[in-house]
């Protein structure tokens, strides 16, 4: 009697987890396996046209492509900009929202707001803010007397990628602020009280208490920064599309363009496989590294 009941319960449990399992397997995992398989074929994207097995040739083409290295460099710039631009700002904003300042709720809302806005809307807003002929930033820079500065940032081979990292920082600072503000809440108040008794000044408290105790927040930040930079796509796609030329190309834009502009699906799938492996490895390795650091 009990055995029958328990078998029925087991079947019920399996049935309950089945819809999610099937949905995820068919629309997430199956395409993932397809990417790996298709990366070994040459294909022009036309339905019913034959696939031509080429082995690892797509990967060789990928790693021989100069644009791949432009993208790699740009991802590096994204990671650095995260550490130089987003990190200090996010920590500062976190202290603001955790402080006893009046109006901090309003401040927090404004800092976080970009995070919920469509990236395309953000790109459009900044397109106008950075508009070279009479846009607010151009007017500001020229108004301050820097007439010779080339203000066409998004249209410049050299500066486009940096302009994107600034827009990116504007978008994601508020999100990263949350990581650090959660970390700050976890620091018990009496640690600061004890430091105060010992005569610690503001900077000393920051240096010897706050920063060391935010260690896991820094790790979460770094993980998100690295993986987010490797997989960054939308922000570049909507601002410059990887241009001018291929100056601001990232992995995502290369994947997209090779498929839908050049009909070079083999290359795109090789890029897809590379992205899957790279972001998976980055997540696993960094998580493992941090876990080991925790033990020691």
């Amino acid at each position: 009697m009990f055995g029958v009941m328990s078998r029925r319960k087991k079947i019920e449990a399996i049935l309950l987890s089945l819809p999610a399992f099937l949905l995820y397997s068919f629309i997430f995992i199956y395409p993932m396996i397809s990417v790996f398989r298709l990366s070994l074929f040459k294909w022009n994207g036309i339905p019913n046209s034959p696939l031509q097995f080429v082995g690892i040739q797509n990967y060789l083409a990928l790693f021989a492509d100069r644009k791949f290295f432009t993208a790699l460099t740009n991802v590096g710039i994204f990671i650095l900009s995260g550490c130089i631009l987003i990190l200090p700002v996010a920590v500062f904003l976190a202290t603001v929202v955790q402080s006893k300042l009046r109006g901090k709720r309003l401040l927090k809302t404004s800092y976080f707001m970009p995070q919920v806005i469509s990236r395309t809307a953000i790109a459009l807003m900044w397109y106008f803010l950075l508009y070279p002929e009479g846009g607010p930033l151009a007017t500001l820079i020229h108004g301050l007397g820097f007439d010779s500065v080339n203000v066409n940032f998004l249209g410049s081979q050299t500066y486009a990628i940096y302009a994107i990292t600034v827009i990116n920082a504007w978008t994601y600072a508020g999100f990263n602020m949350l990581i650090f503000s959660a970390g700050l809440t976890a620091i018990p108040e009496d640690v600061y009280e004890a430091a105060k008794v010992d005569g610690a000044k503001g900077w000393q408290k920051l240096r010897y208490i706050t920063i060391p105790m935010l260690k896991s927040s820094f790790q979460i930040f770094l993980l998100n920064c690295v993986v987010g930079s490797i997989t960054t796509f939308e922000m570049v796609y909507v601002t410059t599309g990887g241009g001018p030329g291929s100056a601001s190309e990232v992995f995502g834009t290369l994947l997209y363009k090779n498929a839908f502009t050049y009909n070079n699906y083999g290359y795109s799938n090789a890029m897809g496989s590379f992205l899957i492996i790279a972001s998976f490895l980055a997540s696993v390795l960094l998580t493992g590294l941090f876990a080991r650091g925790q033990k020691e």
Partner: protein
Amino acid sequence: MKRLKAGDIIYRLFAIVFFLIFIYPIYFTVVSSFKTNTEIWNTMFALPSKIEWSNYTSAIFDVGILRAVLNSFIFSFGACMVVVVFVTMAAYVAARKLIRFSGALRLYYLLGLMIPPYAMLIPIVTMFTNFGFRDKYWPMILLYAAINFPMSFYLITGYIEGISKELDEAAIVDGCSTTGIVFRIIFPIASPGIFTGAIISFLAVYNELIFANTLLTNQAMKTISVRLLGLQGERFTSYGPMFASIVLSIVPILIIYLIFQEKVESGMAAGAVKG
């Protein structure tokens, strides 16, 4: 009153400067949406001298932005509903380890958090083309549900694990089926956690661009992100309608954010700590 030290003043000044940096692009967009073309560029920091409603009528009737807002809502709401039902059932089974390989299953789902969905763009586009799924609501909703499933699963499983087992054990003694427990007991108790998962999915789908841009080609099906992207390429005699379109497409999501602020923030913060 205590006198402020120089350091405190600088600190507050910075807090306000950042406030202005984050708010100005939004302010600029909103005020420009009420201005004429010449006024947009001549008075970039001022309020409009006269409110130009024609920008909005143009955004609604020429651009058709409300249709895009409606589409974004349909996709977001649909995906949210699918995610909520599927995830809650699966998360309960996983949290209580009711089937073998529950641990392996969790790792399997966690994989979805570490991989960018757009890496699978080509097989998914091919699948949609082969099955005739392009420009249809349901396939798109299921795709969005699948993409957002791992994050919600992670959030909701964590929440259910925090619920005492005594409640479901009592229900089992009373002869309640597992399905009954999920929908009558877990669903109401875990609703804060489920809601957080749902709202995170909602935001993600509302703003999604890549899949919508490749899979939706029919103008009547396009979402806000796709429609706004299209505006970038179009030549306008006046920029006002463009700003009005941005405002109309971000206002609904900002309202949702402002109403459920705590949920959105806590959900995103929890999502950052995955792994």
